[in-house]
């Protein structure tokens, strides 16, 4: 009897222990094999991305026998919820996809490996322009390798533009011209756009004035004069009030639902967003579309090549050389990039861009051409958003919503936003 009890107890304990052991590696797709090296790679994205990424990993394994690759993937939101605890437990994947808005946090907290020693040796970058490579630099250290680049622009349906009585988007257009055109469209009962994402386009606006949303050290806002805030958000609110842009209520209602946006329904001319979003938008709109550059003056100072995402290597990784080799394969291998087709942004290597060109669809080609046109005139990117930026963006979005609802004026809100943002930033200083 006693023996039985003890046995039962042991079994229970054992079960529990194994259950615990399993949960440690839960979610990963272990592929066995003890010899050779094992890499863990994590990314976020849609099903299409998962599929072609798997194909590329298979391709890599074929060319590098003895390398095992475990994959972990999730949607954007879940990805970061999973990654943070892994960082806390010192168990980050060897290679992980990083976003501009998160990379500072991981870099500043010592989670990422400096890639500088690998550049030129393990990771070939002769074909990459300095401007683009620099986007992965935080505080003077190369923490991320951009997978591809995007650029801001106005994505529109030229036929609806004509219907609104406007022949074309003028070259080098200015904010005044933008307002004038938008109001003209409104007279024909057509919305010009769906307003602009507050943090991204305010940062662009500030850059055209030689400033930026955050200062270079990420310790405070990067502009001194609240009049700039008032000017920019006052203008956006004015366009809403005039009816050239849908009301904030309507914008909230249709937010994130492409099918319900005005451009899809033919009642709006275009959307301000990143170039990599063009392909998906065009597919839903299903009419010929075009890309126009940003509004000036000093558009050249404002636009920059933004990495759609980075590959980064964990500081805790045991196989950094192998990880660097994989990143090199991703960036420079032409066959691999023929599968990617710019889905992670326009490739950063010139040779790869050229090799991929014939494989592209008409829409994808438009994006590549637009980025190629903007790249030589663009300015260096401001440093990636500092730690705490998620909270700041949430606060900014809130304030802008208040302005657009008419509950407050831009001038009233500007100092409040400054106080909030600076408090959040100082809170996040080590």
């Amino acid at each position, binding site marked *: 009897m006693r023996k039985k009890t003890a046995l039962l107890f042991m079994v229970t304990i054992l079960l529990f222990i194994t259950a615990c052991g399993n949960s440690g590696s839960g979610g990963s797709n272990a592929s066995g094999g003890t010899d050779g090296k094992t890499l863990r790679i994590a990314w976020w994205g849609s099903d299409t991305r998962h599929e072609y990424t798997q194909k590329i990993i298979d391709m890599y394994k074929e060319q590098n026998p003895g390398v095992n690759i475990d994959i972990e993937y999730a949607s954007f939101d879940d990805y970061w919820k999973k990654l*943070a605890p892994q960082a806390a437990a010192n168990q980050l994947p060897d290679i992980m996809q990083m976003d501009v808005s998160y990379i500072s946090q991981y870099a500043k*907290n010592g989670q990422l490996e400096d890639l500088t020693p690998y550049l030129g040796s393990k990771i070939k970058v002769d074909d990459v322009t300095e401007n683009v490579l620099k986007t992965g630099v935080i505080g003077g250290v190369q923490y991320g390798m951009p997978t591809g680049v995007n650029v801001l622009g106005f994505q529109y349906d030229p036929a609806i533009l004509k219907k609104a009585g406007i022949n074309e988007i003028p070259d080098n257009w200015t904010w005044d011209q933008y307002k004038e055109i938008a109001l003209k469209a409104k007279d024909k009962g057509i919305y010009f756009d769906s307003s602009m994402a507050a943090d991204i386009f305010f940062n662009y606006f500030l850059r055209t004035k030689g400033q930026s949303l955050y200062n270079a050290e990420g310790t405070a806002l990067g502009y001194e004069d609240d009049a700039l805030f008032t000017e920019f958000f006052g203008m956006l609110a004015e366009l809403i009030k005039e009816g050239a842009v849908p009301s904030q209520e309507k914008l*909230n*209602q249709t937010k994130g639902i492409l099918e319900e946006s005005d451009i899809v329904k033919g009642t709006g001319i275009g959307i301000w967003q990143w170039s990599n979003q063009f392909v998906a938008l065009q597919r839903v709109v299903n009419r010929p579309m075009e890309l126009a550059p940003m509004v000036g003056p000093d558009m050249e100072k404002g636009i920059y090549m933004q990495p759609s995402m980075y590959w980064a290597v964990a500081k805790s990784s045991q196989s950094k050389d192998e990880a660097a080799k994989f990143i090199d394969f991703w960036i420079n291998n032409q066959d691999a990039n023929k599968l990617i087709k710019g889905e992670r942004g326009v490739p950063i290597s010139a040779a790869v861009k050229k090799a991929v060109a014939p494989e592209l669809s008409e829409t994808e080609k438009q994006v590549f051409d637009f980025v190629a046109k903007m790249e030589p005139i663009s300015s260096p990117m401001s440093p990636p958003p500092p730690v705490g930026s998620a909270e700041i963006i949430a606060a900014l979005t809130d304030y802008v919503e*208040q302005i657009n609802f008419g509950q407050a004026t831009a001038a009233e809100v500007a100092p409040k936003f400054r106080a909030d943002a600076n408090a959040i930033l100082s809170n996040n200083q080590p």
Partner: protein
Amino acid sequence: MAIRNESLKTNLTGYAFISPFIIGFLAFTLIPMFISLYLSFTSYNLFTSPRWIGLGNFEKMFTNDPKYWNSVRVTIYYVFVGVPLRLAFALFVAMVLNTASRMVGTYRTIYYLPSIIGGSVAVSIMWRNIFSEQGIVNHFLMAFGAAPVNWFGNATAALGMLITLSVWQFGSSMLIFLAGLKNISPEMYEAASVDGASPVRKFLNITLPLLSPVILFNLIMQTISAFMTFVPAYVISKGEGGPLDGTMLYSLYLFRQAFMFNNMGYAAAMAWVMLIFIGILTFVLFKTSKMWVFYESEGGGR
């Protein structure tokens, strides 16, 4: 000695059998709870080790965070409007179903369905579609000549929609009410009929008092679960609690602090405040229950 050994053995067997629960409870509930209590006095961002800041989190919460108070306001509104509506609706449906009908079993199942699937992500997404710009609710409104409403557009409409969603999940309260109703002896109603009582009078003087223990139970369970509502607000507002923070329920704000802004210490402090608040509220509900809950077993003194 032999007896002692024997009883030890029996006890051990017992412990062995409940050990999965004990271990699970310790590892996944009690220990995490104490860790969270510790974290609530620290500043912790998951990356660097927690830094002790004493009551700093609570100080910020109570004196320097308007968004926190907004989330409290939204949650209280949600609970105090939503729970009574849900209970009233559940009681109404229970009374309808309490009438004898051949199909009553089927109806019960059907009306209970929303509760089984209610809190899930899929339903919240469906709800998003129903109330979308071109959703059936707006089509319905337009069919009657009313203007379509931007349900996700302004704060009042969005919170109203959340409350509607919570009322719709009335099934579990309804089942409990139904069981309670079945327990009321038909003789009471018969006697009342003989005395010429109207149906309203019967409801007020027989049904409500005899059902009051069940109402208390439902009230407490539903209030607690309403305070913890998270999934519908998260899905419907796409995790942002908008518009104008109108659907920023307490748990959603807590989640955002924890997992979007990585303020784990602050989020832990928020969770403890919520726990204490719910505890006090439940205590108050129990205390006031003496005034309105009628227990038959105590005799008909009241």
